[in-house]
C-alpha cells in the first residue's frame, strides 16, 4: 500500500497559558478513511480538531494536506486567502451545534447555494437545482427550500449543515460531535446518511465524539485522548474490543454494550 496520505499531522501542540490543550499528536489519514477521536470532556479532542481545521493556531506542529495543485502543503503556514479557499472547497467542518455552521437568517436553499457561490457558481437556476438536489440527499423535502433554518427541527438543521458542507464535494470533513444533542432515532438517521455519503463520495473524515457506539459504526480507526495526550490509537474494533491502555479499558467498560 503506497498511496500518499491525504492529511499528515505532525507533532501538534497547543497550550492555554501553562495548561496543555493537546500535545505530541501525530498521525496520517489516507483517502477514504474515517478516523474517530474519543475522550472525556477536557481531554483535548476539540482543541486538536480546531487546530487541524485552522480555527485555532497551535503552538507548534504541522498539518500537511495533499492539495490538488501543489501536493503536500502545510496548511498552518499557508496564506490566509489560500486557506480560506481550501476551507470552502476541499475541506468541510460540521459543527456540533448546527447554528454555528449555518446562516440562520438565510433560507435553506441559500445556505447550500452560498457555498457554491463562494467557489464561483453564478447561474441562479443551476445553484438552486443543485441546492434542491442536496436537500433531497439529506432527506429535506423540496418544499422547505425557501424556509429559514430557524423553522427547522434540530435534526433537520444538522442535515442541512451537512448538505451545506458537502455540496462542493470536499475531500476531507471535520466533524465535532455531529450527533450530539440529537435524539436517538434522529442520530440513527444521520449515521446512516453519513455512512452512505462517505462510501459514495469517497470522503475522508475526522469525527470527534464521546459516543463509542457512533465511532464503532462510522470510524475505521480510533484515537483515544486523555489529558491532551493520545493514549491509544488503532483499528476501531481492536481498540474497543481489546483496549490496551488503562484509560481505554475504563472507558470501554463504563459503557453499556457498544
Amino acid at each position, binding site marked *: 500500500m503506497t498511496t500518499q496520505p491525504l492529511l499528515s499531522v505532525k507533532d501538534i501542540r497547543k497550550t492555554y497559558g501553562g495548561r496543555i490543550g493537546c500535545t505530541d499528536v501525530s498521525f496520517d489519514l489516507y483517502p477514504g478513511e474515517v478516523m474517530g477521536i474519543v475522550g472525556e470532556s477536557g481531554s483535548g479532542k476539540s482543541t486538536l480538531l480546531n487546530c487541524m481545521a485552522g480555527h485555532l493556531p497551535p503552538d507548534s506542529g504541522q498539518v500537511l494536506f495533499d492539495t490538488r495543485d501543489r501536493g503536500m502543503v502545510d496548511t498552518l503556514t499557508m496564506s490566509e486567502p489560500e486557506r480560506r479557499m481550501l476551507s470552502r472547497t476541499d475541506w468541510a467542518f460540521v459543527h456540533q451545534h448546527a447554528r454555528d455552521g449555518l446562516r440562520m437568517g438565510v433560507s435553506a436553499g441559500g445556505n447550500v447555494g452560498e457555498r457554491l457561490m463562494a467557489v464561483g457558481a453564478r447561474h441562479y437556476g443551476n445553484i438552486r437545482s443543485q441546492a434542491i438536489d442536496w436537500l433531497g440527499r439529506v432527506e429535506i423535502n423540496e418544499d422547505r427550500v425557501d424556509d429559514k433554518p430557524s423553522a427547522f427541527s434540530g435534526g433537520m438543521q444538522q442535515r442541512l449543515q451537512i448538505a451545506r458542507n458537502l455540496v462542493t464535494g470536499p475531500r476531507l470533513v471535520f466533524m465535532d460531535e455531529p450527533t450530539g444533542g440529537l435524539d436517538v*432515532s434522529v442520530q440513527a438517521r444521520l449515521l446512516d446518511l453519513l455512512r452512505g455519503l462517505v462510501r459514495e463520495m469517497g470522503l475522508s473524515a475526522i469525527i470527534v465524539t464521546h459516543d463509542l457506539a457512533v465511532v464503532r459504526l462510522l470510524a475505521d*480507526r480510533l484515537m483515544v485522548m486523555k489529558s491532551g495526550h493520545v493514549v491509544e490509537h488503532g483499528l476501531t474494533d481492536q481498540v474497543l474490543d*481489546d483496549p490496551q491502555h488503562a484509560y481505554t479499558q475504563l472507558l470501554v467498560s463504563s459503557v453499556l454494550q457498544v
Partner: protein
Amino acid sequence: MTQTLPPVIRIEDVSKSFTLHNQGSAVIPVMQGATFDVMPGECVALTGNSGAGKSTLMRMIYGNYLSESGHIWVGDTDVANAEPREIIALRRATLGYVSQFLRVVPRVPTIEVVAEPLLTVGVDRETAFAKARDLLSRLNIPETLWGLSPTTFSGGEQQRVNIARGFAHEYPAMLLDEPTASLDATNRETVLSLIEEAKARGAAIIGIFHDALARERVADREIDVSAFTPAKAA
C-alpha cells in the same frame, strides 16, 4: 492439485495475553505458540473446551484482538503486524467474518445490509442487490422483511441476515463463528451448502462449530486450541 498453491492463512507462533489495568494490572496469558496453515478450499474447525481460546484466536486473525508476537498471514498481509488501513483493505476484499451477532446501523433495510459488502468492493448496485435477494431467499427471510431494518427481527432471523451478509462477497478467506447455532434444519442445511460452495470455489475457512454433525460434514481438519493454551502460572 491444491498442493502447489500456498496456504491462504498461515499462523506462526502466535501468542497473546490480556493485561487488566483496572483489576490490579493482572496479566492473563491466553495463547502461546499457535501455529497452523489453512489451504485454499480447506475448512479447519477450531475445537477445545469453552474458554480454551477459540474465539480469541479467531478475533486475532480478524485483527480486532492484538497479537503479542508471531505472524498471522492472510494472503500477503500479516494481520499481527499490519497498519489499520492494511487490515481494513484486507477485510474489504479478502477476509470475511460471520460473527454470532449482527451489528448494523439502525434504519438500514435488510437488503442493503446484505448488499453492502459487495457495494464496498465496487460491485454495481443491480448485481449486488440481485445477489442479496438470492441469498435472503435461500435463507428463507420473507420478502416482506427485506425493506425493513433487521434490528427488530428475531434472533434467528438476525443470524440468517448476518450469514447472508457474510457470504455476499466471495472472500478468499472466511472466519465462521458458530454459523449453524440456533438454526432450524432447513436453514442449517442451506448454511452448510453455502460453506461447501465457498470451499468449492477455493475459499480457506476457519470455523467454530459446536454442532458436531455440521463440523464432521464441512471440516477437513480439526485443530484443538487447548494445545496453544499456556500452562497455568504457578
